[in-house]
């Protein structure tokens, strides 16, 4: 058994303005995705605007504290504690802002009919504070750990390459970037414009757009 209050969860401020409070990662839950989100301030974003089109997840958003205003498929709903939104259609755009500064939303998601796989974005989110402080070793370690489970995940490989490049590990960065592009060619285009790769863009073997 493991226990935590939502206020005891890690607090990872995301550039988009919401705060990610990892739950699945904290408890090492392996059968479904779940997290808590809180705002930086009242009126701020609490659930980022997004769709689940890429992952194909259905999701439940449960208000566990305070009040929030959800926008789903352009409909607005003001919700308090104990109210939930179940978005079964992964294509629907959804997001929420906090109406009170103590608001907290618990999310639950997964792909129906398939065994749960830890989403790669979790590692990318977890590495954000380290990247912001330019603590590259820890940011790289988090990505390497995620890649042990998802060794062929193009976005993870790309992000790892970015951080290795910023850390001065040019050869590792080039190899991981090449691997990412081999798996999913679109990353070559991103790499051409990504300032993280400034130090290696003129190297032989840097992927052409």
């Amino acid at each position, binding site marked *: 058994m*493991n226990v935590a209050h939502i206020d005891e969860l890690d607090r990872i401020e995301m550039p988009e303005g919401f705060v990610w409070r990892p739950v699945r990662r904290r*408890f090492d839950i392996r059968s479904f995705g779940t997290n808590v989100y809180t705002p930086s301030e009242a009126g701020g974003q609490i659930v980022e605007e997004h769709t689940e089109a890429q992952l194909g997840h259905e999701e439940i958003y449960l208000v566990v504290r305070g009040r929030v205003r959800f926008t789903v498929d352009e409909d607005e709903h003001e919700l308090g504690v104990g109210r*939930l939104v179940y*978005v079964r259609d992964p294509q629907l755009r959804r997001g929420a802002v906090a109406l009170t500064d103590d608001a907290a939303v*618990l999310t639950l998601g997964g792909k129906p009919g398939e065994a749960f796989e830890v989403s790669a974005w979790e590692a990318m989110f977890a590495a954000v504070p380290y990247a912001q402080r330019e603590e590259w070793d820890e940011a790289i370690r988090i990505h390497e750990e995620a890649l042990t489970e998802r060794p062929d995940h193009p976005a993870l490989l790309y992000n790892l390459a970015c951080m290795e490049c910023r850390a001065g590990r040019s050869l590792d960065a080039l190899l991981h970037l090449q691997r990412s592009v081999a798996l999913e060619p679109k990353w070559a285009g991103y790499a051409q414009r990504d300032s993280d790769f400034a130090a290696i863009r003129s190297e032989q073997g840097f992927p052409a757009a």
Partner: protein
Amino acid sequence: MSDGYTILALDEIEPVPYHQREGQKILTIQRLLDFRAAGINGWIGDAGEGLVPEHEEDSGSEELYVVVRGHARFTVDGNDVDAPAGTLIHVLAGENRVAVSEEAGTIVVAIGGRIGEAHGPSGWTSFVVADALRREGRMDEARAAIREPIEQFPDAWHAPYNAACFEAIAGEPDNAFAYLQQALRIDAQAVKGYAPQDPDLDSLHDDARWKKLVG
């Protein structure tokens, strides 16, 4: 509102009595939403009433309990946990757990799933609803509720098996044997291991079809 999403208020769900402890009531979230990615249900109770029934997860599911409102007290493998609103408790399959309410209107949401397996809703909440109706003597509604999972989960032997039990209790042996046959076609070993000791089916024992089907 589009068909692609649903808004639900937990305290507007009609609680269904659960048989393990006086006052225990389940919120059948899974059944209402038909959420497929994981198991999810709720428990609601006033001070002193039972919330999560005492159990281990024989299914092998790990579970996360979320205290949404009020105040609960959990006991997990003999360890007490004070759990005000906002508490999250992760419990592994083999751990014995039970929770009681310490405040009026306490709500706990239980989320579960089996590691490495796609979640397969079992129709358990439909059984709970049907069982509650049966205990209230609302037999026709109970029989209708118990039939719900049969079409929904065609590979689950216990769906027609439970329907057979309810038909037997209602004094409808022809229906009972038809459902029993359906259950046997799905998993004869499980049904034959369970049926002879099941008091719900006692009324069928003297019928010639019983010996032929169950042995």
